[in-house]
C-alpha cells in the first residue's frame, strides 16, 4: 500500500512542473486563445517522449495533473490516449472522438479536433482511425479548447477493431482528464490563497476573515479525494483489474467504473474550486486580466465535453445496479 506518489512519480511531477512553469505560463496560455493550442509548446512536449508503450496510465496521470495546473494549451490527454494505437500510421497529433460518428459520418466536437492529424473513434460497428488534414480552427467555446467536427469517412481510414474497443480508450481519457481537472482545482486553490493573503480590505488581508477561510478550507480534502480516486482508477486500468463492484461493501476495482467515478468527481471538484477561488477574487476574478477566469472556464469546458454528467452517472448506475430494468417490471 502506498497512498502518495512514488519517488519516481515525484521526480516526474517536479520535472513537468518546472517545464510547464517555464513554457506554459499565463502569457502563453493567453496567446494561444481562442484556439487553445500552441504548436511550439506542443513540439516541446512531444519531444519529451512520454508516450512510449511503457508509459503507465498512472504516470501519465501525474503529468496530466501538471498540465492541468498550468492549463497547458496542448492536447496532452488526447494524444496520450490515442497515440499508442496509431504506431505506424505516421507522425503528428492523435486524438479520440468521445462520441460515435453521426448518421452523416461526422464526429462532432472532437477534443483537439481542430489540430489533430489522426482521429480515432467509433463509426458504426468499427473502431477506426482516420488521418486527414486538421482544420486548424473550430467553434469558439467556453474553455478555449481546440474542438472541431471531423469526418469519420474522408481521409486515410484504418479499421482498428470492433467498436467495443472504444470503452478502454474512453476510460483512459476520463482518468487523465480527471487528473487534469485535479490540477485545475489545485492551482485554483493556490491562486486563491495567494490573492487572499495579498488583498487587503478593512485594513487586513481578506484571508484573515473566517468566512473567506471557511470557503476555502473544504477544498484540500476534495482535491486530495479526487486525486486518490483518479489514481485508483489509473492503477486499475494499468493492472487490468478484475472488474469488482461491490457497493454494499464499498469495494470497487473495476477500471471502467472507477474511471467514470473519477471523472465525475474531479469535474465537480474543479467546478467548485474554481467557483470559490473566482468569488474570493471579488470583481477582479471576473476581469479578463486575472488568471482565475482561465481556470474557471476550463474546469467546466474540460468536464462537459464528454456530455452531461447525469448521463455518465446513469452509465455508472447500470454497472452498480444492473438488474434495474427488470425490477421495474417486477410488479409493485
Amino acid at each position, binding site marked *: 500500500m502506498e*497512498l502518495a506518489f512514488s519517488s519516481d512519480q515525484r521526480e516526474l511531477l517536479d520535472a513537468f512542473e518546472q517545464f510547464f512553469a517555464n513554457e506554459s505560463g499565463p502569457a502563453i496560455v493567453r496567446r494561444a486563445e481562442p484556439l487553445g493550442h500552441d504548436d511550439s509548446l506542443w513540439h516541446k512536449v512531444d519531444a519529451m517522449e512520454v508516450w512510449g508503450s511503457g508509459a503507465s496510465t498512472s504516470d501519465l496521470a501525474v503529468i496530466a495533473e501538471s498540465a492541468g495546473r498550468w492549463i497547458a494549451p496542448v492536447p496532452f490527454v488526447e494524444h496520450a490516449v490515442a497515440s499508442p494505437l496509431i504506431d505506424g500510421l505516421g507522425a503528428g497529433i492523435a486524438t479520440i472522438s468521445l462520441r460515435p460518428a453521426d448518421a452523416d459520418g461526422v464526429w462532432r466536437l472532437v477534443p483537439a479536433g481542430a489540430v489533430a492529424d489522426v482521429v480515432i473513434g467509433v463509426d458504426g460497428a468499427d473502431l477506426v482511425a482516420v488521418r486527414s488534414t486538421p482544420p486548424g480552427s473550430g467553434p469558439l467555446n467556453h474553455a478555449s479548447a481546440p474542438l472541431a467536427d471531423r469526418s469519420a469517412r474522408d481521409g486515410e481510414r484504418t479499421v482498428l477493431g470492433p467498436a467495443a474497443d472504444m470503452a478502454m480508450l474512453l476510460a483512459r481519457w476520463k482518468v487523465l482528464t480527471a487528473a487534469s481537472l485535479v490540477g485545475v482545482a489545485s492551482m485554483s486553490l493556490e491562486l486563491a490563497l495567494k490573492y487572499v493573503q495579498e488583498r487587503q480590505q478593512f485594513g487586513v*488581508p481578506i484571508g484573515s476573515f473566517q468566512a473567506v477561510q471557511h470557503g476555502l478550507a473544504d477544498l484540500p480534502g476534495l482535491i486530495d479525494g479526487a486525486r486518490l480516486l483518479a489514481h485508483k482508477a489509473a492503477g486499475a486500468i494499468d493492472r487490468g483489474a478484475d472488474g469488482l463492484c461491490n457497493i454494499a461493501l464499498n469495494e470497487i476495482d473495476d477500471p471502467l467504473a472507477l474511471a467514470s467515478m473519477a471523472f465525475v468527481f474531479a469535474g465537480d471538484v474543479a467546478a467548485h474550486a474554481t467557483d470559490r477561488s473566482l468569488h474570493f477574487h471579488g470583481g477582479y476574478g471576473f476581469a479578463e486580466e486575472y488568471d482565475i477566469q482561465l481556470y474557471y472556464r476550463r474546469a467546466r469546458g474540460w468536464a462537459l465535453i464528454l456530455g452531461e454528467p447525469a448521463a455518465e452517472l*446513469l452509465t455508472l448506475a447500470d454497472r452498480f445496479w444492473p438488474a434495474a430494468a427488470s425490477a*421495474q417490471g417486477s410488479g409493485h
Partner: protein
Amino acid sequence: MDFELSPEVVAYRERVRRIVAAHHTPEAIRVQHETGTFNNPSLNRALAAEGLIERAVPGLGAGDPIELWVLFNEIEKAGSPVDALGVAVMIAGVVQHVGNERQKAELVPAVTSGEALICMGYSEPDVGSDLSALTTRAVRDGDEWVINGAKMWTTMAHEASWVILLARTDPDLPRHKGLTMFLIPMDTPGIRVDPVHTMATERTNATFYDDVRVGDDCVLGEVNGGWRVMSVALSFERGVMGGTNPGVPLLEHTAAWARRSGRLAEPAVREKLARVAIDNHVAALLTQRSAWIAASGGLPGLEGSMTKLFASESYQKASRWFQEMAGAEGLLQLEQPGAAADGWIEYDARHSPVTTIYGGTTEINKNNIAERHLGLPRARR
C-alpha cells in the same frame, strides 16, 4: 499509488466481517433503538474472544493503523455502532501509553476482554468547542483530589466502568496548561449520571461530580498534563476509527428499497444513488490515506479533519436526497409498515445532523485546516 491491501489484511478483514455479520442481528438493532444505547456487547465479546480487541489497542496489540481502520470500517459499513467500542479501544491505548501500572493492570484487560466501556468527560454545559475554558475543578486535599463540576454529553456514562475526566487543577496557569486528566471508576461516590435524549434515539448523558474524592493513582499522565493526554488520544484516533462511512449502509438500505419498490428504474433515483456511491468511495479512500500515513509513522491530524469534513457533509447530503426521493414514505420510522427502506432513510435523516457537530464541529475543523494546512492568518472571528 497502490491501494491494495496485503493478503494478511484481507484475511483479517474477512475474519472481522464474519464476526460482525454473526452479531449485528435484527435483535441487536432492536435493543439499540429501544434503549438508545448504541453498543453491541455480544459483538465486543466475540471480537475479544478472537483476540481482535487486544490486537487493535494502539501500542499494545500487533495490529497497526491499517487494521484499526479495517476493523472499524467493517463494523460501520455493516451499520453496527462504532463509537462505544472505539472510545474504549482508544482510551485503552492512552492508558497503555501514559497510564500507571495499576491503571494498565485494571483497565486494559477489562477492555480487551470486551467487557468494559469507558466514557469521555471533556465537554461541559457551557464549554464545547473552546474546551480549554472548562471549569470542572480538581482541588488538592491532603493526598487526595476533590473534584466538583458538571460534564455534558458524556456518552455511554450509564454503561461505562470508567470515565476519563478533564478537570482544572491549576487556575493560575494559562488555560490549557492547568488541566489534568483523571481516570475514575464510575462507581466512585459523588458521581451522578442523568440521561440526555437526542433526536436520533441515541442516549447520551449529563454527568455531575459532587465532592468526588480520588487519589493520585487516578491521575492519568502528569498533573497539569491533561491537554497532552488528550492529544495522545486524538493521535490514536486519527480519524480511522469509524465515522467516515455512514453513507455505505444508508446507500445499501436505499438501493434495496429502490429495487423492491421499482423506483430503481427511475433515472433521477439512479443518478443520486451513483453520486452517493462515488462520495462513499472517496470518503473511504481519504480514510485509507489517513491509516496509511499513520502506519508509515506520520500523524494524519489535518488529513483526518479533511476526511471528517467531507464524510459528514456528504452523508448529510445523501440522507437529505434520499429522504426527498422517498417522499412521504421517507418520513416513516423503523418498523412502521410502508416505511421507505424499512425506516432507515428516516433514521439517517435524523442521525446525520450530529455528524458535523460531535468529534469537532465543521467550523473548528475548517479553522484548523485554514490555519495549519492552508497557512492563512489567524482568523478575525
